[in-house]
């Protein structure tokens, strides 16, 4: 499904060039529940961003569902993300002026889906992530765990092929983090959506069905469980 071939990504900080990824290659199949782990600065987020088509690579190629996304222009990448990818962020990144329902349904309105269908799908996914009855609450009236549940619902509501999560439990306590992981795993099982998430938390790594370890911009191990 996803082919990452010899991907290179360099960042320039002043006069210094930081080699974030040094020729990473990785094949990810349909419905995988994969964790990219490694210490800070190992290139986890960079790899996620490149697969998520929000960053441009300096070498190599990334193909998703047979489409060479690395060669796409900005507009095509946006269109691809809109239709195929879901994102979950460490800090949830919800729109504070919108309710739980509106935060989730907003993604569907971007896709110009009819109002009735938007309502049905949003209510269904909110129920699945355990937020039934809280759909009218704004993010500031919800706990961190509940906010991350909205973020998961927002990522899944459009039935994407891939969900990318950057350290999804880093801002949560261990109990809530575990609940979120269980939820993600359940969604992965139920919808057969490919989940790729970055972490440096060993508890999170334990939940992954496949664990890719990065160190200094290179894959040092790739373990299937």
């Amino acid at each position, binding site marked *: 499904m996803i082919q990452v071939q010899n991907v290179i990504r360099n960042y320039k900080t002043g006069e210094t060039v930081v080699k974030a990824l040094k020729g990473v290659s990785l094949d990810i199949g349909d419905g995988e529940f994969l964790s990219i782990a490694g210490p800070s600065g190992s290139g986890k987020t960079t790899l996620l*961003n490149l697969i*998520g088509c*929000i*960053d441009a690579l300096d070498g190599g190629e990334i193909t998703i569902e047979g489409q060479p996304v690395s060669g796409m222009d*900005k*507009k095509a990448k*946006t*269109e691809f*993300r*809109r*239709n195929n*990818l879901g*994102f979950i*962020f460490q*800090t949830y*990144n919800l*729109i*504070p*002026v*919108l309710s739980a329902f*509106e935060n989730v349904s*907003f*993604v569907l*309105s*971007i*896709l*110009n889906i009819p109002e009735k269908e938007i309502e049905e799908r949003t209510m269904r996914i909110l129920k699945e992530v355990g937020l039934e009855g809280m759909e009218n609450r704004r993010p500031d009236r919800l706990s961190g765990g509940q906010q991350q549940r909205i973020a998961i619902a*927002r990522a899944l509501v459009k039935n994407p092929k891939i969900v990318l999560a950057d350290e999804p439990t880093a801002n949560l306590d261990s109990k809530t983090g575990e609940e979120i992981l269980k939820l993600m795993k359940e969604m992965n099982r139920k919808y057969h959506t490919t989940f790729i998430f970055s972490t440096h938390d060993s508890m999170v790594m334990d939940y992954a069905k496949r664990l890719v370890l990065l160190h200094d911009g290179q894959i040092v191990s790739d373990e299937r469980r």
Partner: protein
Amino acid sequence: MTMKLIHVAFRNISRNRRRSLLSGIAIAVASMSIVFLFAMVQGMRDDMAQNLATYYTGEVRIRNAQYEEYERYNPIHLTVDWQRIDQALAKRSDVTAYVPRILFPSAFYVNGGNHPAVGIGADFSREAEYSDFAASIKEGRIPDAGKNEMLIGSVLARDLKLGIGDKVTIISSTAARGNNAMTLEIVGLAAFPVASLNSQFFWAPLDRVQHFLRMDNEVLEVLVMVEDDERKAAAAIKADLEPLLGSALDIKAFNDISMMYGFIELAQYIYYFIGVFFLLLGSTVIINTTMMVIYERMREIGTLGALGMHGKELTRLFFLEGVFISAIGAAVGVLVGAGITVYLGKFGLNFTDALSGIDMEISSVLYPRFNLWTTLIVYVYSVVISAAATLIPSRKASRIEPVEALRYV
């Protein structure tokens, strides 16, 4: 999608209420000022047109063709044939009223000294048809035809310590270029809206002034009120009268006579440009706000970009926020401006002190003229300019890369 963007943009206004309020106030103050400014200029223009037509030139003025050339020499011998003009104008359907006048410089011999004053010989029975002349009488009455009586400006009377019943000897040059004097009794004190009319002018019966100035049945000018366009009417009257009288006449519309009125007309157009600058100035606040909002919501821009929102949709989101603030601010400003205009249009703005000693055909109390159509235009104008100004920073949102925005702290 558009509906959703409108919804989000509207909600976003409340995220930082104080800042949105500040931006809205800037637009409101600009819109309010423009509404009031335009109403004030329109009020001044209308007031001046009214004063010119009533007291100075009529809507169309008929004079001897040579009068203007020699005006500085007081050429009261350059007259027009009042009787034949009267007969001709009476037949015209586009003429609503007309009065004969003789304007002449003179001196009041009072308390052993001479004091300059401008006399107006007028047919008071016709003046009543021409304008609400009686409304200007502050005390006493209008002079009677055939009697040596005068109506005097209240400020002139006060300055010369004169009152009703006092007799004043006036001295002036006659049409035969000799000097003459005549004693008139003050029978009325007038309070005209124009300061100079009160401080420099006196009015006497036309027949007595004709006799005093040795003008037979002639007059210096005929002031005419017309139904339609003054310039067209002036041309039509000229075409009618000149062959009839067999002499050249100077017939002009009031807006071609008064230089000051021309300035006010010009000023009105200049104020349209000043209005744009007012709004651009107000818009700098909203530009600044939008720029700050974009930097504050950088991560949100990144998130929305990652979720698949195109650059132009992000631009639209921030642009709509600006439009809402502009629309609300402009609405408040225009309403307040209209309120102030209506209030002052009723009670007036008193410029008596500011205009004292200034020889202008503008009333001491000015009434801003509320115009619904102008107010609506100002509203649209305010929203369009300030919204357009918001577009500049809003476009920045479309150029931000999601990956950079998500890294933004």
